[in-house]
């Protein structure tokens, strides 16, 4: 089970979600993807993404205007 980290700070929509999409394509079921984003639209995007792809949104939090999401691919 691998763990990937993406730094998508400073990227505007659709940058962060495209990075997540590309990483997810390479990942195996059970892998964890952690992503850091400053684009505020990402919060909704990542929730919609997980819902549509059946991935688990393990964690979603915002600290000092940075959004941290942890996703488990299923």
């Amino acid at each position, binding site marked *: 089970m691998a763990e990937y980290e993406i730094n998508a700070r*400073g990227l505007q929509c*659709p940058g962060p*979600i495209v990075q997540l999409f590309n990483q997810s394509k390479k990942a195996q079921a059970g892998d964890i993807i952690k992503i850091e984003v400053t684009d505020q639209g990402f919060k909704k*995007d990542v929730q919609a993404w997980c819902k549509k792809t059946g991935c688990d949104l393990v964690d979603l939090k915002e600290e000092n205007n940075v959004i941290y999401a942890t996703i488990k691919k299923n």
Partner: protein
Amino acid sequence: MVIIGGVAAGTKAASKAKRENPDLEVVVITKEKDISYAGCGLPYYIGGVIHERHELVVRKPEDFKNDQGIDILNEHEATKIDPAAKTVTYEAKNTGDVKTISYDYLVLAMGASPTLPNLDGKELKNIHTLRTVPDAEAIRRLVDSGEIKEAVVVGAGFIGLEAAENLHLKGIQVTVVEFAPLILSGYDEEMSLLIKNYLVEQGLNIKTGVGVTGFVGDDKGDVSGVKTGEETIPAQLVVWAGGVKPNVKIAKEAGIVIGPTGAIAVNEYQETNIPGIYAAGDCAENTNLITKEKVWFAMGSTANKTGRITGLNIVRGRKESLPGVLGTSIVKLFELHAARTGLTEKQAVEKGYNAVSVIVPGNDKAHYYPGYREIITKLIADSTDGKILGVQVIGEGQVDKPVDIIAALISCNGTLEQLSRLDLAYAPPFSMAMSTSILAANVLRNKIEGKFKGMNPTELKKAIDNNEAIVLDVRTEIEHFLKAVPGSINIPDKELEVRANEIPKDKKIVLACRVGKRAYMILSRLKKLGFTDLYIMDGGIACYPYELI
């Protein structure tokens, strides 16, 4: 000088007159116990955001006497005005004693009151309006008792929605029932729906186009539900915020002219038809600065202004006037801010203006500065002369600045051209280099100049339903996968020329991207490919309030 009413306009008129002429004898008659209280703060008191009662009621009657020499007769109700004798009759609420006072100048500042219609079960306990401090205290006690699990708020105006938010934050399940088809009447349909969608996401249950038909109670005489026709919504607390009416009864009985809006008719000096009698605040009519029509906006900001003008004019004589108001307002609901000024597009069209609008998402700060938030601007102008008619701005970012800028500009008869040239304060923590207001002005100028045709979300929804238009979504595949207009076709901008054969030729093509920029960029490429009936989706997917899949 006698003043009837002691909240915003009444006490402001009293203070201003006394400052201008310290020798003037000033008496305020008010039926309420509290004076000069923060009526607009009441929703925050029921939720405990404003913790203490004394934060709402800053000054006591004796403070007015001691600090300014103003006499306050609180818990006294004015019952009759005699303009010929220049007297006011009033009754002490505790003792029933009736007295008469003479005046040289009279100020009517009776405010407005909520109207709870005569519905079945209205006498049940725990049904409250929210206008006075005792109203707020009663609701706060119920909330703090922990016994309220469900509440219904009737009316989706500012006070109703603010109350709903505060109750929700206290862990109460809240249903908002609004008779009108939309919440917040000063907003156009698509903006109102965007606000509603946000509130529903936050956990409020909102029913629009639904009327309350009665209340049901339990065996203790407490309310237990709100009837809306067939349905009964469970509620142990009802906040009735279904609108207010100006208090004009004693004015009308005294022969003071009531205007077409139902409020007291005044000229720009706040004078009524009877010399020496003025009206200010929520009981008085306003003039719409744009249409010059009589309107009634019961706003705390206007009440303070008209109170001040009245006080000044009584001492100095026609010194100051209020030419009109724009209906400027702002509200915070959870983290969403919404502000507006001027006419809505719908109003502007109804009044015969050649109204054109755009919806433009932007950021309140530079996009690379941490903590920026998106705000959506709907700007409305007259296409014949470029005059700005109104604006609505919503989002989690700062919205008061753009709306105040545009309110100032409308007040000076400003145009889009002037707006797009304004030298506004800019540094990354405060604004985009091209502020959202300037950006919106530029987009609207492009639209008026015919550089593109836009389609408003509401129009688009109708056109899709009637099978007249199709959305060509030029975002990336992943964006389209996340959320898209039902039935839209996705051709990412890079693939346009290769896949042009997939675009239908028998319908209006509405180009969509997230905010409208990529759609605009692609317009000329599509024209080159021979497409002519092309539109840009106003505001893009970010501002589409209808179903997205």
